[in-house]
């Protein structure tokens, strides 16, 4: 396929090869950080001690997720699927084998049926090879299912919080049980809600996945360009920030006096300027409710190709989670 149909100009080669090309290109750009060990698998470039392995992955189209989180204090290996498509069992198994240092492996993936099923097949084969793997499926997207059905909720930008915290716990030399517990605590205490102003468009596709009228926004978007759960009148940055904060606080126990980490995540086409304006409005609403923001992250962490819009994520911290969140990390998408 040479011609690329669709309404947007794209810089790709063969649309069918973008994921495999991405893995090679990312390794080409960041040899100090990652090493390519298979067509769709990257591992940490530095030597690691005998720690619990952290593996992540998912579809491509979410850059810098997930390969941008490979590094010290982050993931040990990542498997990369086609655009918005979970990687295959083969790729996931390869990532697990490379991350295994004999102390077990924690798999951190978003809670999507495709990821869950492919991980299950890979873990079955890893277990047969004698590797102990625990699976943690991030489920921060509060719009994806009601609060009483958390097992049906999907993972979006909260992946970053959970991966950071689990990665820090593993880097601290903790056991598989402890690393898993830290990751689960982070997931339980993390929520995300987002809005979309326009859809993503896949390379090679004839049209965008959905269209939104000029004066509307999709609330509760999916991070794969799926339409949101409702459309509402487009608000100002302040109105959107307030709306996002209120939806978050309505869904999670976060009483006055709580401390949170706040992540405002651009989806790909919304400028950082707008992200900062919305971030400030979220902070105002949180502090107005007696909640203090320990750390903010603003920028593109889990994108959806060129979707316009953003999401807000909070993690309600305790001392331990705060310590893991503040710990050093040296990955392409996060360095501190």
């Amino acid at each position, binding site marked *: 396929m040479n011609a690329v149909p669709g309404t947007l100009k794209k810089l790709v080669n063969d*649309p*069918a090869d973008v994921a495999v090309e991405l893995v090679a290109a990312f390794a080409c750009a960041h040899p100090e950080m990652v090493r390519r060990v298979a067509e769709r698998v990257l591992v940490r470039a530095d030597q690691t001690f005998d720690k619990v392995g952290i593996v992540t992955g998912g*579809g491509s189209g979410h850059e810098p997720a997930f390969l941008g989180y490979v590094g010290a204090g982050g993931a040990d290996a990542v498997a990369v*699927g*086609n*655009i*918005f*498509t*979970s*990687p*295959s*069992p*083969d*790729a996931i198994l390869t990532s697990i084998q490379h991350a295994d240092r004999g102390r077990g492996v924690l798999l951190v993936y978003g809670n*999507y*049926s*495709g990821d869950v*099923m*492919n991980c*299950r*097949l890979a873990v079955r084969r890893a277990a047969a090879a004698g590797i102990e793997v625990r699976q943690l499926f991030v489920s921060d*997207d509060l*719009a*994806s*299912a009601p609060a009483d059905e958390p097992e*049906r909720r*999907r993972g979006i930008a909260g992946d970053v919080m959970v991966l950071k915290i689990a990665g820090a716990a593993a880097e601290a030399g903790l056991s598989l049980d402890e690393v898993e517990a830290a990751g689960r605590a982070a997931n339980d205490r993390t929520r995300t809600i987002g809005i979309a102003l326009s859809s*993503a468009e*896949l390379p*090679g*596709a*004839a*049209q965008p*996945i*959905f269209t939104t009228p000029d004066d509307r926004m999709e609330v509760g978007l*999916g991070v*794969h*360009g*799926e*339409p949101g*759960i409702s459309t509402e009148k487009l608000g100002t940055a302040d109105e959107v920030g307030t709306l996002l904060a209120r939806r978050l606080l309505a869904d999670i126990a976060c009483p006055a006096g709580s401390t949170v980490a706040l992540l405002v995540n651009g989806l790909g086409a919304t400028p950082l300027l707008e992200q900062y304006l919305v971030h400030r409005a979220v902070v105002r609403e949180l502090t107005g409710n007696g909640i203090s923001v320990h750390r903010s992250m603003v920028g593109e962490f889990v994108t959806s190709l060129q979707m316009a819009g953003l999401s807000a994520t909070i993690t309600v911290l305790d001392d331990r989670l705060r310590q893991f969140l503040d710990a050093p990390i040296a990955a392409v998408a996060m360095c501190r």
Partner: protein
Amino acid sequence: MSGGAAVALRVTEAGAIALEGATEELCALDSVAGDGDHGFAMATAAKAIRRRLADDPPPDGRGVAAVLAAEFGAVGGSMGALLSVAFDALGDEATGSDTPLSASQIAAYLETVRAALTDFGGAKVGDKTIVDAVASAQAAAAAAAARGASPAEALSAAAAGANAGAESTADMVARVGRASRLGERSRGSVDAGARSFAVVLSAIAQAYTTGDRA
């Protein structure tokens, strides 16, 4: 190569060609409630399957099923995993593929696929997934077998059943998979996975019947 393998190769190739031909339709259906790439994924798998079957034709039906399981698995995604598991199960059952195909055998194969999809993926009839098309095809094939139909008649009945099952998903609300986040907004369009199964089974029925007459 056994006679069973020749039939398996012929109908698989026909199914793969049909799947590639339906790329745009399947992507359009998927974009209603998903990310619009279902057709690309199926075409990628279909292309790889055709290449492997042409380069290195397996000696029996079990070998054909193994190629299908591997190549669907390689594309990733939920459909990749589901179809990989389903063809693995089919391969386990296809050991005696040299016995002539019967209508009841077709119904049994479809039941194996349905059970594998439900066991592994958790979707049941009415959840707006590929299972609706498979279950409807299976019921039609079983009914055809019960009235003494030929294999070709059973396959045609199964294809019609698959189409009816796929169409029935238009009135359903997705309960599993990525589309389920949309709730009521998923109503009104046919599920892309169900549609692809109907496309493939129709092509298989046609190819089998054509070859049967030849």
